[in-house]
C-alpha cells in the first residue's frame, strides 16, 4: 500500500512543477523592474528597445508569454539567457554537476559528523558531559551555512591559510573531462592529483554546508536513540545479558535511524538551497553562484530555468528520502 502513495506523489510532480513555474513567471513580470532597461547601452533608440523587447517576447500579454514558454519548455527549450546569450538548458546543465558534487560531499560529511556526535552524546546519557554535547550541537545549529562559510573562509583561508577560498580548481590545471562531474571522473580515471586539487577547493564550502546539517542530524539522531533505548525491547535486551554498546548499535540504532532519516532527510533541501550563497562566497562555479548573477541581471529565462531546476531537485530529494524511509521500516512496507 505504501507503493501506492509513492505513485501518487510521482503523479503530483508535474502539476507542482507547473505551479512553481506559474508563480515564478508571474512574479517576475508583475513586479516592477525591467530587464531590458538593464541591458541596453546608453543612447539606444526607442526602436532598438522595442525590438529587443519583442525579441524576448516581453511585449506580449503575460498569459501569451507563459503559453509560449511552456510550449517550448515541453520540448526542452528553456529559452536563451538574456545576460549570457546561450541556451538556458545548456548553461544549467554545464554547471549543475559542480553543485551536485558539492552537495553530495557536504551531505556525506554531515552524516558522518552528525552520527559520531549522536553516538558520543548517547553514550554520555545522564552524565554531566551530555550537556556539553547538547550545547555544542545547539550552537552549530544556530549558525547558518553562509555564516559558516564566512567563518571558515576567515579561519582556514585567511588567518591560517590552509585551503584555497575561490573557484572549483586551480586555474593552471588543465581539466579535460567528458562530463562536468570533475570529481567523480577524476577518481574513476585515476587522476588523483586532479581529485586532490578539487577536494582542496571543495572542502571549505562543503564543510560550511555540512556543519548546520550535521548538527541537525546529531540532535535528531540522539533524541531518537534515547527514545528507542527506552523502549521495552531495548530494556529486555539488557535482561538477556547484552552490553549497552552492543544494544545501542544492534537493536537501537536501526530503529532510531527511521525517524532521523524522515525528519532530517527533509532538511537536505535546505542544504541544497544553501549552495546559492556558499558558492558565491567561495566563487565556486555552480548553479547557486549563477543564480545570484542571473537575479542581479534580471535574466528572466535563466532565473526561471534555475528555479525550476532547484524545484525538481527538491522534489526528487523529498521523494528519495521517503523511499529510503520505506526501505528502513518494515512496518511501512506491508501496509
Amino acid at each position, binding site marked *: 500500500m505504501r507503493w501506492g502513495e509513492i505513485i501518487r506523489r510521482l503523479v503530483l510532480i508535474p502539476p507542482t512543477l507547473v505551479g512553481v513555474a506559474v508563480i515564478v513567471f508571474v512574479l517576475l513580470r508583475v*513586479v516592477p523592474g525591467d530587464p531590458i532597461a538593464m541591458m541596453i547601452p546608453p543612447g539606444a533608440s526607442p526602436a532598438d528597445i522595442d525590438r529587443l523587447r519583442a525579441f524576448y517576447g516581453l511585449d506580449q500579454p503575460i498569459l501569451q508569454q507563459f503559453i509560449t514558454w511552456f510550449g517550448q519548455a515541453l520540448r526542452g527549450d528553456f529559452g536563451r539567457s538574456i545576460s549570457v546569450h546561450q541556451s538556458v538548458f545548456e548553461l544549467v546543465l554545464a554547471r549543475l554537476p559542480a553543485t551536485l558534487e558539492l552537495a553530495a560531499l557536504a551531505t556525506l560529511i554531515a552524516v558522518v559528523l552528525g552520527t559520531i556526535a549522536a553516538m558520543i552524546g548517547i553514550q554520555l546519557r545522564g552524565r554531566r558531559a551530555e550537556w556539553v554535547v547538547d550545547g555544542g550541537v545547539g550552537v552549530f545549529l544556530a549558525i547558518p551555512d553562509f555564516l559558516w562559510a564566512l567563518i571558515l573562509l576567515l579561519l582556514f583561508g585567511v588567518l591560517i591559510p590552509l585551503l584555497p577560498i575561490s573557484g572549483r580548481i586551480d586555474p593552471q590545471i588543465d581539466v579535460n573531462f567528458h562530463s562536468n562531474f570533475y570529481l567523480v571522473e577524476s577518481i574513476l580515471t585515476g587522476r588523483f592529483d586532479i581529485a586532490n586539487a578539487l577536494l582542496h577547493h571543495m572542502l571549505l564550502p562543503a564543510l560550511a554546508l555540512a556543519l548546520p546539517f550535521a548538527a541537525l542530524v546529531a540532535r535528531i539522531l540522539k533524541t531518537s536513540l534515547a527514545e528507542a533505548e527506552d523502549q521495552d525491547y531495548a530494556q529486555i535486551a539488557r535482561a538477556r545479558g547484552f552490553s549497552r554498546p552492543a544494544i545501542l548499535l544492534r537493536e537501537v540504532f536501526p530503529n532510531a535511524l527511521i525517524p532521523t532519516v524522515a525528519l532530517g532527510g527533509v532538511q537536505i533541501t535546505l542544504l541544497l538551497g544553501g549552495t546559492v550563497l556558499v558558492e558565491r562566497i567561495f566563487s565556486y562555479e555552480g548553479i547557486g553562484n549563477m543564480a545570484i548573477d542571473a537575479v542581479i541581471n*534580471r535574466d528572466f529565462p535563466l532565473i526561471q530555468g534555475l528555479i525550476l531546476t532547484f524545484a525538481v531537485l527538491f522534489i526528487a530529494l523529498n521523494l528519495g528520502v521517503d523511499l529510503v524511509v520505506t526501505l528502513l521500516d518494515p512496518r511501512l512496507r506491508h501496509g
Partner: protein
Amino acid sequence: MVDLALDSALGPPSRWIAGLKRGGPRLWVGAALVGVLVLAALLAPLIALHDPLEQDLMSAQLPPAWVVGGDLAYWLGTDSLGRCVLSRLIYSARTAVAVALIAASLAAAIGIAFGLIAGSFGGWVDQATSRLIDVWMAFPPVLLSIVLAAVIGAGLTSVIAAIVVVDWTRFARVVRAETMVQLQRDYAAAARVIGLSRSGILRLEILPNLIPLVVTLLAVEMGIAILVEVILSFVGISVAGDTPTWGGMIAEGRQIVYQAPWIMALPIGCIISSVIGFNLLGDGLRLVLDPVQRR
C-alpha cells in the same frame, strides 16, 4: 476530563515570576543579547562615535585600536573608505532590528491567518491551503527572496516583502497543525455544544493556547529575518544607497579579506550573537509560557 482553555497566558504577578524562573539561563542570556541589539539600534546616534557615512581616506583600512597600527579614534578600525567600523556596525543594527520586527510580525500575521483558516475549516479549504503551502515550500527560500528583492528593487520594503513572502509558510504549517489538534480536544467540543460560533471558539479557546507556540516561532523568525537581510545586503540588493548593513560590510570585507580581515569578521560576530540571542530568547519563552514542555 475536560481541558480548561483559559488557564494560560494571564494570571497574577506571582505566577509571572514563577514562570520567568522556568525560563532558566536561556531566557536571560537571550534577553540580554537581544536587549543589547535593540539598545544599539535605538541609541545609535547617541553612542556611535562617528557618522557611519563619513569618509576619511587618509585613515583607510585601519585595524582595531588594540592592534599595532590602530588608532584610538577608531575603536574597531576603518574600512577602505575610512569609515568607522564600529559606527557602521551600530547603525547596521538599526536596519537589522527594523527588518526583524516588521518582517517577522507580518509573516506571523499572514501565516497565522492562513493556518487558522485551514485548520479550523478543514475540508477543501484545508486541502487548497496545504497544496499552496507545499508548492510554496518547493521553492529554494534563499533564491526566492533574492529574486523578489532584486525584482522589486532596493529598499526596506522589498527586503521585508521578500522575507514575508518566503517565510509565512513556517507559521501557517505549525498553526494549522496545532489548531487541528486543539479543535479535537474536549474543551472545543464542549464549547461547540454550548453553541459558540466558529470564530468565537477560535478567539476564546484556540488563540490563547497558541500563544506559547507563536511567541517562540516569532522569536526564531526574527533571527531568521536578520539572516535573510544579511544575505540580501551581502548580495547587494537590500536597502538603498549608503545605509550601512552587516551584509554589505561583509561583502566589502570579502573583497579585501586578506588585507583587512576584521572588516568581514566583526559583522559576523554581531550577526551570530543576535541570532543566537533570538534563538535562546525563543527557547526561554517557550519554557516560561508552556510548562507542559519539559526537555
